[in-house]
């Protein structure tokens, strides 16, 4: 009954526009010590970063990284066992679920932005994405200048939208922009020649090319535009937990373990660690 009352009050607070009181400090660690359980958010289809494998279990680059982080949590908190509770998250809800403390560690590919930092904290950089173009090989598009007079698709609401507008303005291009609802629609638009290029964060292209009915007809082109550092989200006001995460990743960066994990997942797609990601990792490779 009390619980229902609390929920009703929360709902009333929402309607009236109050926000709940700030959460207590280090809630994640307190919860871990009390229940031995950590809630990990994962993405269902973000290949190869975080997705459901053939055995319907979360797997991928980010999941591997997070498992090492959880090992470090065990050591630091002297917990023999930690139970991992996996919760699927998506682009729309991932941020809210971390902000409200449902998810303790979001293991996906979320770009660290100023706006997001207001609501959640981020681990060190796990991956650096950049915007590129997905085109049909037959289109012969290879650089931004080739886009003049062409039609380009962008995903509504993605960070690539303002970037494309900058590119158009800087290169004085004449480009018609078509909004698509999701990556799949972007792929269909390219394949059906409704658009000439799909401009997006290149992290999304891996699964798209894989799902295409004719992968060899597609190619990712153009200079890598922008700097979109991705990290794992943790709830705000958790200094001790964030420190363990940062420390665990720093150790992996330094020991070369991070590179091994990276190669395991990205090598099959022909992707290597770029200079920007290496620089970001070096920043966190403190001496012990």
């Amino acid at each position, binding site marked *: 009954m009390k619980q229902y009352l609390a929920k009703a009050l929360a709902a009333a607070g929402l309607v009236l526009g109050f926000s709940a009181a700030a959460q207590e400090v280090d809630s994640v660690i307190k919860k871990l010590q009390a229940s031995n359980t950590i809630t990990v958010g994962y993405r269902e289809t973000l290949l190869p970063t975080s997705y459901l494998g053939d055995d319907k279990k979360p797997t991928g680059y980010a999941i591997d990284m997070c498992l090492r982080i959880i090992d470090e949590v065990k050591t630091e908190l002297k917990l023999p066992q930690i139970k991992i509770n996996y919760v699927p998250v998506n682009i*729309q809800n991932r941020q809210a679920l971390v902000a409200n403390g449902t998810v303790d560690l979001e293991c996906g590919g979320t770009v660290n932005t100023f706006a997001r930092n207001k609501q959640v904290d981020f681990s060190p950089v796990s991956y650096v994405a950049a915007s590129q173009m997905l085109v049909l090989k037959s289109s012969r598009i290879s650089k931004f200048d080739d886009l003049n007079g062409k039609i380009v698709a962008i995903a509504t609401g993605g960070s690539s939208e303002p970037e494309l507008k900058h590119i158009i303005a800087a290169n004085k291009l004449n480009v018609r922009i078509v909004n698509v609802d999701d990556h799949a*629609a972007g792929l269909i638009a390219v394949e059906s020649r409704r658009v000439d290029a799909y401009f997006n964060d290149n992290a999304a292209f891996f699964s798209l090319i894989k*799902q295409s009915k*004719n992968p060899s007809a597609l190619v990712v082109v153009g200079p890598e535009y922008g700097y979109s550092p991705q990290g794992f989200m943790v709830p705000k006001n958790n200094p001790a937990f964030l420190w363990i995460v940062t420390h665990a990743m720093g150790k992996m960066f330094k020991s070369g373990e991070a590179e091994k994990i990276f190669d395991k997942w990205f090598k099959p797609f022909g992707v290597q660690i770029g200079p920007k990601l290496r620089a970001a990792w070096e920043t966190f490779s403190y001496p012990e």
Partner: protein
Amino acid sequence: MNDFDWGVIARSWPFLAEGMALSALLVVVSTAGGILLGLGLALMRRSDHAFIAGPATVYVTVMRSVPLILVLFWFYFLVPLVIGRPVGALASALVAFVLFEAAFYCEIIRAGINSVRAGQTEAALATGMRRSQVMRLIIMPQGLRAMTPLLFNQVIIVFQDTSLVYVVALRDFMTTASVVASRDGRPTEMYTLVAVVYLAICFSLSKAIELYGKGRAR
């Protein structure tokens, strides 16, 4: 895309059937919940007290003036926030559908009740029946006859409405087909199939309702 591959339908049939099952679940829950809540709203709107009738009227007016897609977005974000844990798109969509369709069922039920002449209420009250008894024994049975075809029609509309859960990526029949369409690169075949299936179901249902209405009129 001159080469059609209708085999894609056979191959993806089990997956599509799961989608159809979800569409059916959405229809059943939003119809049952919508009628129940709609009945409550209709009775509230008939109240003589402004503070009972007023909120119901505002609720119905707001729900009837906004697009269902916007309502789906609302609850997609609101429900997990209120409950405080992730509940998935299905729970949010079910809440959205029940609350949205209730406004439409309310108006159908209200019209049905209003179709019974006011004199009957007075006559029944004069025999010493209580108001609740009059509603249950006299008005409702007659009103129900008047509103049944409209209620069935609304079920068809709800079925068509369920296709909009596409916007929150919930796997109903439409969305499943669209997943297959992009997974196998077969939008032409898949969307044609979706259109034919919806047409067949909705057309036969609406013809059945028409026949039922005619049969009763005789």
